[in-house]
């Protein structure tokens, strides 16, 4: 692309811009840019802004005339008098920490090992990546069978009667294992792709300088794969904040269960169903939006600022 662009630049000095873009071109440009922009506005920005607007109202979702302005009432109620809210925030944080500290590094580790020319590497890659091919809902069904207290695989193997999904102290961890199982494969494939594009000369140079395996990885490979690292971190943070499907399926598809409340589930709790509280749910959605933007924004700004220096 860049080589093409430089070629174009030289004649552009000779001709003034307007002549180069005829009315047909302009129309074409307007359309090609306009349609996606319109789609973005209609399908992303409009709903987002509408959610923010609705979050200051109280509405049952039936007739438009029933929308009442309540100001910050919903937010006040959520922060001070909504029993599942703070547990949900806590669980989202636990989710983020768990995913960032266990499945993500483990996926990187697997990728690093598989990048060495070990035997059956293709087989391992496929096997580890397999859960990622399944939709999260299917992953949920698979683990539901494993965790069943009467006929489940897990209780059968360990020989104890443990109510994995029913016990509010255990069920979040049970769900995290299921989600981590899938996340590991995802991270592995992302990182493996990065490693495949890694210049082996760098590793050789490190070896010549007397670096051991660990040093090579930490000092040479990891910094060189910075773009991939950023993607992985962003993916991890996003997946943790928007976590929904596995919990929804393992929770029986009826909304949040004690011990497994998540912000995303609280939103659907309030919006979907017969007696919906659109305003209240929107306020929760806005809170999740702000948290997500803050997390991703801070991270990206920091990363790119360092890069600019």
């Amino acid at each position: 692309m860049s080589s093409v662009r430089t070629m174009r630049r030289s004649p552009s000095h000779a001709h003034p811009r307007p002549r180069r873009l005829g009315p047909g071109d302009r129309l074409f440009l307007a359309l090609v840019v306009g349609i996606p922009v319109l789609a973005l506005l209609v399908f992303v920005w409009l709903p987002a802004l509408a959610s923010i607007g609705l979050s200051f109202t109280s509405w049952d979702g039936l007739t438009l005339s029933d929308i009442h302005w309540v100001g910050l009432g919903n937010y006040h109620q959520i922060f001070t008098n909504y029993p599942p809210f703070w547990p949900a925030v806590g669980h989202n944080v636990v989710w983020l920490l768990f995913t960032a500290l266990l499945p993500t590094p483990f996926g990187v580790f697997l990728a690093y090992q598989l990048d060495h020319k070990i035997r059956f590497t293709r087989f391992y890659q496929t096997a580890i990546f397999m859960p990622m091919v399944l939709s999260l809902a299917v992953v949920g069904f698979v683990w539901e069978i494993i965790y069943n207290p009467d006929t489940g695989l897990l209780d059968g193997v360990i020989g104890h009667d443990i109510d994995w999904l029913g016990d509010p102290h255990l069920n979040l961890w049970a769900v995290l294992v299921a989600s981590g199982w899938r996340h590991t494969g995802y991270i592995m494939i992302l990182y493996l792709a990065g490693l495949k594009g890694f210049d082996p000369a760098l590793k050789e140079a490190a070896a010549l300088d007397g670096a051991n395996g660990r040093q090579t990885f930490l000092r040479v490979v990891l910094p060189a794969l910075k773009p991939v690292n950023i993607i992985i971190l962003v993916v991890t943070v996003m997946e943790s904040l928007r976590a929904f499907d596995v919990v929804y399926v393992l929770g029986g598809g009826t909304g949040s269960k004690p011990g497994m409340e998540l912000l995303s589930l609280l939103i659907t709790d309030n919006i979907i169903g017969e007696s919906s509280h659109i305003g209240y749910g929107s306020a929760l959605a806005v809170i999740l939006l702000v948290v997500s933007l803050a997390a991703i924004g801070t991270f990206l700004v920091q990363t790119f600022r360092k890069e600019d220096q």
Partner: protein
Amino acid sequence: MTLHSRSLRTAAGPSRRTVLHGLFGVGAAALAVPALAACGAGGGSDPKTVTFGSNGGDATPKKAYAAVTDAFRKDSSLTVKTNVVDHDTFQKSISTYLQGTPDDVFTWFAGYRMQYFAKKGLATPIDDVWAKIGAGYSDATKQLSKGEDGKYYFVPLYNYPWAVFYRKSVFRQHGYQVPTNWSQFVALAKQMKKDGLAPIASGYGGGDSWSILGAFDYLNLRANGYDFHMSLMRGQAAWTDARAAKTIDLWRELAPYYQANGGGRSWQDAAQSLLDKKSGMAIIGLFLGQQVTEESLRSDIDFFPFPEIDPTYGQDTVEAPTDGFMLSRRPKNPDGATKFLEFLGSAKAEGIYMGIDPSNVAVNSGADKGSYNALQKKAADLIAGAKHITQFGDRDSDPGFISTVVEPGFTEWLNHPDDGSALLKKIESQRSRFFTA
């Protein structure tokens, strides 16, 4: 991007226009699709067709509804176009469904949940239908079919009682007696535990949290009576009321006899444990019968009404959720839909339905009871003898309040039953959000 298109032009000029046309086409199609989908159901207003939205997605109800609509076609030469949706999905999307272009007639629940949509103007009153079918129904049923404005909005099809189910052979084998009051009931549970049975089958895992409400409703009805229960359900009484606390205390007495690990088990698995003689009793609805696959087993199942707690109230109330039909707000074929509703409310239609689905009881007193099995007969008698009929926790109250506040609260409490003051306070703190005047 511009550059690519430029080179394209020199190579094949007109193709850009084709591309553009293509883009237009896609854009137009993308805009048109939702519009089309929105009016999809509204397409045909054929005077010979009535559309019917059914939540009977399972095999048995599907077959039973098909038999009913077939019979209607023969009677009236009107065709019914049935649109079957899975039961849970139907419930979840009901608000959007009713606001869009719903079918003329749709399946729904009696009582509070019918009244909610009637109040919002999403259903059409059907007093004219009731002028024809009214004779077949008791006053309690008529009450259940009316909106808050006193007009009829609902045609009942069937109901089923909640009770305490057991296997006769288990009771015979251990010499158990059917308990009629609270102390006998608790003593029986205790004895069952000694005999190595799980006294009360319990499965409220996954999406089945609703199944625990049966016990709460009956405890509250027996201890505090119908009036208090209904005002509690309708958000008119405080959950921190001493009477609610008393109900929780009673429940706490029973909690140790619940089958262990209920929080991870489905209601079907819990029901199965009763059929497998691993559990002694189950507080459940007549739909337990749907779990029975061996017909020989059916005759071994029996039930008794939930025991008396306070003699003032005795066993005067039966929890019998009623399912039936409503007319949407702007039916495309109002005359045909009215005829269809009249047919659905007739003894004949109910008889046809009940002949195929034996886990329910017809509401119309004129319906043919000849095909009833022993359990259905007993269920019909139980309901007929009731002074009050309640629907069920999540039908007598705001469903959102029950599913997002009460059910999570109860399931959490059942894991570690205590005096419940924290639980009740938590529920009370959310009440005003759902019930505003």
